[in-house]
């Protein structure tokens, strides 16, 4: 039972979710939370795609969403590998600890 929703409302939700994710990236120091925030941002982009697909009644939006899913999965896999290494070598998940290179 699909419904016709005003596009601006869906987009506003997607934009809001995206910005919440962005705030998370700017505020959190724990890498795990950074990665979660990234997931939120990507999910927001996926939502926007699905909404756009719904506007045009075409499958492309959903297909793009699927590729975003694949991308998210791939990124998380590598990212978590790096997190594990960070925890070992920096003995902390605080990204502010990883600031040895600057200037």
């Amino acid at each position, binding site marked *: 039972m699909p419904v016709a929703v005003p*596009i601006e409302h869906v*987009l506003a939700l*997607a*934009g809001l979710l*995206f910005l919440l*994710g*962005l705030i998370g*990236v700017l505020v959190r120091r724990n*890498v795990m939370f*950074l*990665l979660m925030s*990234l997931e939120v*941002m*990507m999910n*927001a*982009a*996926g939502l*926007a*795609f699905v*909404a*756009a*697909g719904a*506007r*045009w009644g*075409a499958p*492309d*939006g959903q*297909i*793009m969403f699927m*590729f*975003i899913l694949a*991308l998210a999965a*791939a*990124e998380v896999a*590598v*990212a978590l*590998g*790096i997190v594990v*290494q*960070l925890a070992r*070598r*920096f003995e902390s998940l605080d*990204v502010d600890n*990883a*600031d*040895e*290179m*600057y*200037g």
Partner: protein
Amino acid sequence: MLALLAHPLAPYATLSLFIVVMLVAVGALRDRNVAFAFTLLALGFLLVVNVPAVLGTGSADVGDLLRVDGYAIFFMALFAGAGIVTTLLSGPYVTRLSPWPDEYYILLTTAVLGAVVTAAANHFVSFLLGIEVLSISLYAMIAYPREGRKPLEAAAKYLVLSGAASSTMLFGMALIYMASGSLAFEPMTELSANDNLIADLGIAMLLVGILFKLSLAPFHMWTPDVYQGAPAPVTAFLATVSKGAVFAAFLRYATDSGILASDAIALGIGAVAVLSMVAGNVLALLQESVKRILAYSSIAHMGYLLIALVAAAGIGGNAALGVETTLVYLTGYFVMTLAAFGVMTALSTDGQEADDLMAYEGLFWRRPVLAAVLTAAALSLAGIPLTVGFIAKFYVFAAGAEGTLWVLVWALVIGSAIGIYYYLRIVFTMIRKPGEEPAEEGIEEPAPPAGGADATIPRLTAAVTIVLGLAILAFGIYPTPIIDFVTGLTGP
């Protein structure tokens, strides 16, 4: 067989096939050199067999996703070449990083696959997947060394920021799709006023993602840290193939969609170009780390390239010259950047990256040939005549002047003037004999000299580096082969 190879999809198919076979072979043969050999084979095949085979077919669309034309084939050759150079540089280096070099080569090959796909993309889906195959491979390559905190720090920074940039880019694509109903690279016509605004917002977000990957100011900040932290051959790859691929796709998108016709977008791009040229050169000025110098210099160089892009997008009327400029510039930039990082790779020893500028003091007297190559690379990056860098810069200058982009051209001139200082600083440091001048204040302990008598320099690395150094000079004196190749592929 030959007809099969001439199919526009053949390069991508064979490269994929090589990757799969390599996976099996690595598992089955359990020899450290298998992956190295396979990578060379795969990239060599791409360069020597695939590229000539598809050259004849001309422009061909593969579905909606890829456009295999002269432009894409040019970048295919360029990336394959740069990939081969990176592989050769990595050979002796990677075995020091980790006892398992196999994954490194697989990742390198997938990264090249991503890059060649990106350069041929004329659809957001292939654009996204190409870039991300490249980026995902790079995250792991940057974090490849099994010890040390810097590579990990670099990888973490790159991954998080790049992820944020990708998300922004995706959101932008979604907005563009929302407004136009198409994911292909094509001009957006007949949009309602409001859809137009949405599309503009989408383009802005898309650009943020692209500009980030190209490390242009103000989205450039990851660059020096990642360059410094990553292993030298990986940095070489990141600086060349990764940026080249994104730039190729960016240029194709900009010319196909005509986004720069919008004054606001053109203003934004122009501001980014000026900021990058100035910031990159100013920030490199007094750096003590050679990798950071090259990182900032690459920021400035990408700024120069934006001039070509603006020209190629038809601002000022000579779009063909802009495209030609981009290709020539990227070729030159590839050669000189790879040469510089090649020298750095050659000088890096176990657990000691040759990064500190002071470690290069007196290199001319210890390793004259490597020092000469680095000098050629530095002068070329500075744009001194009779190096390939001069040809490249002259092209940009001509493209800018032709398009009467005077503000950008002035920024180019000022940036280059500042740039000469730090490039020459590298050269003078290499000429100065250690101890001739008291060390500057604030340096607690002098870095051990790179390439000292006890350091062994891998023959292979040195040989590759020397070839690149000669190429810098050869193409500077006689650039016609490059120019002919470029115009032959993209010209009318």
